[in-house]
């Protein structure tokens, strides 16, 4: 089926070349970082995780969101999702690949990555994160490929794929729970030490991922002859609404615990992010932007009269995605490191090489997404009219 990605319009090839250009620039920037060390980023002794790990955390959520299509279709026979589950699975593949790339560019000694496999450490959450993410990538590759190939032949997928599909449901939940455990099990950082960290992660994942899927589905309808379906998109919109509401509610819960309990250590990170401490406030505008965009998105999503208009829905999804990207892909990570373990403030901002590398990883992810979607869309176009049965 890969050959379906080799035939495309000028726009298609132009887009792929554009992404390759960004990946090339990122590769050069990475060589610079590899030669000189991670000191070329904005990281410091106090803020030892930054943009790379933030993006990794956010993208694990996007990857997990494929389950929001799998559950209604495979567990509850919601036939309207039949044609677009593959879009969720392929998005998951692209997102997990980006996660792996972000981990790789963040490591101080990437050549030693095999040490995680050679010396498995069962008490380390990071070890388990690598296990579940690799497993999830494998699951989505197998499931996506087998089901799509069967669709392209106009037959039902083989029965042996069913256990894999059912496994992918708890597995998707597990990848984001384990990633949340990276933060929620750290004893010294009160901003992260919350029992609902995994719940927050899952809520924001199930809001942000499907929101991106809606945008991608609308793009697919615009650019190709495959229509994902108005009702499918509306159902995704309802899922995004409920998940976003839960996400915002959970954030409110965190604020309450921090400020009503009055415990200084619990409040300091929130103070830094939303108000600044002692004049250190370089993240304040960003965090308020995230909050305002979240409120706008939720307002537009809650009222059906707005949500039913696809243009408004698209705008709400973009607003939501950016809001969550700032909150989870940046604010959450930096907030854990500021103030530091001595109650001092060291600020963080990414450098230019760091930004170029980050953009290049996103470009690589979009490259994979484009190629995979081209294959999926071509199959759907070629089999239009044939009833999908899984």
């Amino acid at each position, binding site marked *: 089926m890969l050959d379906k990605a080799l035939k495309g319009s000028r726009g298609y090839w132009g887009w792929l070349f554009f992404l390759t250009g960004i990946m090339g620039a990122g590769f050069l920037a990475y060589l610079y970082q590899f030669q*000189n*060390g*991670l*000191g070329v980023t904005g*990281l*410091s*002794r*106090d803020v*030892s*995780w930054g943009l790379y790990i933030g993006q990794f955390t956010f993208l694990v959520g996007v990857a997990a969101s494929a389950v929001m299509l799998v559950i209604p279709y495979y567990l509850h026979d919601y036939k309207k999702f039949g044609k677009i589950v593959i879009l969720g699975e392929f998005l998951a593949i692209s997102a997990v690949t980006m996660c792996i790339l972000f*981990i790789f560019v*963040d*490591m*101080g*000694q*990437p050549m*030693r*990555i095999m*040490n*995680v496999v050679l*010396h498995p*450490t069962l*008490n*380390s*959450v*990071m*070890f388990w994160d*690598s296990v579940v993410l690799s497993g999830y990538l494998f699951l989505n590759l197998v499931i996506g490929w087998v089901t799509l190939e069967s669709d392209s032949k106009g037959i039902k997928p083989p029965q042996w794929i069913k256990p894999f599909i059912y496994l992918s449901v708890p597995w998707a939940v597990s990848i984001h729970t384990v990633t949340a455990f*990276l933060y929620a*099990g*750290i*004893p*010294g*950082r009160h901003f992260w030490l919350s029992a609902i960290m995994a719940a927050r992660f899952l809520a924001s994942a199930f809001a942000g991922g499907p929101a991106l899927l809606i945008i991608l589905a609308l793009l697919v309808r615009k650019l190709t002859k495959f229509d994902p379906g108005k009702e499918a998109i509306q159902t995704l919109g309802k899922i995004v609404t409920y998940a976003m509401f839960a996400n915002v509610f959970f954030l409110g819960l965190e604020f309450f615990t921090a400020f009503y309990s009055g415990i*200084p*250590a619990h409040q300091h990170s929130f103070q830094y992010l939303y108000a600044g401490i002692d004049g250190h406030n370089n993240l304040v505008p960003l965090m308020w932007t995230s909050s305002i965009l979240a409120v706008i998105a939720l307002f537009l999503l809650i009222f059906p009269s707005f949500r039913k208009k696809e243009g408004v829905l698209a705008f709400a999804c973009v607003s939501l995605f950016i809001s969550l990207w700032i909150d989870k892909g940046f604010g959450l990570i930096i907030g*854990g*490191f500021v103030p*530091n*373990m*001595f*109650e*001092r403030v*060291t600020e963080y901002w990414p450098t230019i090489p760091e930004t170029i590398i980050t953009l290049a990883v996103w470009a690589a992810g979009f490259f994979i997404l484009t190629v995979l979607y081209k294959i999926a869309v071509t199959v759907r176009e070629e089999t239009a009219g044939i009833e999908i049965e899984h």
Partner: protein
Amino acid sequence: MSMNRREFIKLAGISTLVGVGGVSVFNKLQQNALEASEFTAGTEALNAKQWAMVIDMSKFKTPEDYKRCMDACHSTHNVPDFSNPKDEIKWIWPETFEHAFPGQEHKYMNEETKEKSFLLLCNHCANPACVRVCPTKATFKRKDGVVMQDMHRCIGCRFCMAACPFGARSFNYRSSRGKDANGQPLIKEENTAYPTRMIGVVEKCTFCTERLAVGKLPKCVEVSDEFSKGALVFGDLADANSEVRKIINTKYTIRRKPELGTEPSVFYVIGGNDYAIVPELL
């Protein structure tokens, strides 16, 4: 012979697996394995179940006195001086009370304690969070209680730095073998008996395991013994007769963030004899 593509790929794949697998098994059988009984500890090596330290800052009369300990540690272990807090690497350093023991300070503290500097270092916790999170066991707890760092295995993921509640760890963001902005070498005078570190690994105080192995006390303790005796006391927490046990049994000592359950092994004597609340045991 006609064979379709699928069969060809299956045959090629299986042949490769058998070939590679067979060759590596053959090689493994050929290797001369060295026996474990050939590796022993030296006869002068110091042993303990849980090395610990008691720090009494009142025994340092001037800042120069504890600076001497810091400089001795850093120069012995080739710790570079980057002269900027972003890339900074430090194994032992001073902080004032509110930064050493955050949350314990209050408005009405006496000025002397408020302004006093406390030496901070890795606490070599009995229940270390950093060891719990390391995915490769590059940081691990030795039998003698030292939380050790294996620079050869560290992949530079910095999970330990996030997990340490005490900010004891530093990362090699840049090469330590270069020169600073003024053309001065980052390591002023290399100690050729100890290695430097490459970029991309985490480092911290190791209670001088290379010195314990030859019967010597940690460098900071040796230097403080020379100029400010009793400021840094080193010993085995599990040995009821050790000096560290005697001190923490008789004087009031605090540890950093004990409520987190990591069980730090570095104790600080707070205040002078006026504040000792436990009578001397005979």
